């Protein structure tokens, strides 16, 4: 039953790669939320631009795992606010605010959490199946 044991380990390696990828995604969400109010340091310059994680399949221990390929800048438009007293306001008194929407980040965070839990479930199940096989030795 060599293939059985091998597959259980592959399944766990795949799920572990996904845990890593989801952790990376959480890190980017944290960056976005932390910089939700980071305006430009220079007059009229660009504020913080929201980052978006992009996943891609990657071979892991004989199966297809996943990894974060890159963090892609979100190209959506910045919000502007009239605030002439602000140091980062442009010539006409408008300040560009980051294109981070806390609601979207919160939803994304829930999604990452759900995916993380699903992968933990996979590891747990793979391990239980492996243990059941090993139980054959007990008798």
């Amino acid at each position, binding site marked *: 039953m060599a293939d059985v044991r091998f597959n259980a380990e592959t*399944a*766990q390696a795949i799920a572990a*790669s*996904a845990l890593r990828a989801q952790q990376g995604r959480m890190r980017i969400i944290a960056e976005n939320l932390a910089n939700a109010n980071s305006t430009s340091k220079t007059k009229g310059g660009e504020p913080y631009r929201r980052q978006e994680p*992009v996943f891609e399949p990657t071979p892991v221990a004989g199966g297809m795992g*996943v990894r974060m390929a890159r963090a892609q800048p979100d190209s959506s438009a910045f919000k502007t606010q009239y605030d002439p007293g602000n140091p980062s306001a442009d010539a006409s008194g408008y300040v560009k605010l980051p294109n981070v929407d806390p609601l979207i980040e919160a939803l994304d965070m829930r999604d990452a959490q759900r995916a993380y839990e699903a992968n933990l479930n996979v590891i747990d199940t793979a391990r239980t199946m492996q243990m059941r096989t090993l*139980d054959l030795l007990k008798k």
Partner: protein
Amino acid sequence: MDLADIPLFAMIRGKLGYLSERQKVIAENVANANTPGYKPRDLKPFSFQAQMQAQASGPSALAVTQPGHMAPPALAHAATAAKPVVSKDSETTLDGNSVVLEEEMLKMGQARADYDAAIGFYQKSLDLIRLAARAPGHG
């Protein structure tokens, strides 16, 4: 004699191999639940009929008598190649991913229960062999 020479054991082993392979495919699907454009895959259902036919009319295995001989390709693997699942448009996200986590969790639970059952059968069959091998009167 190898236990796999007994059709019953060969069958249960085939089922165990299938289930752990399926578990691996499910792990891949769950890991890639957020990968753009990823289509979930699944194995063809394990069929008792097909296994029986393979047992009855299986091609005679090639013997490896020289170190230079190549091992014949694994037949079981060709039959259990993972195929992409066609899913409804309503289950496909905007980035082209059509993995439904709930469905994968359900399939995983099923695979785990089936695996437990197959291991149980294997155990019982081993007990039969043990019973037959026991010296009479040493109950």
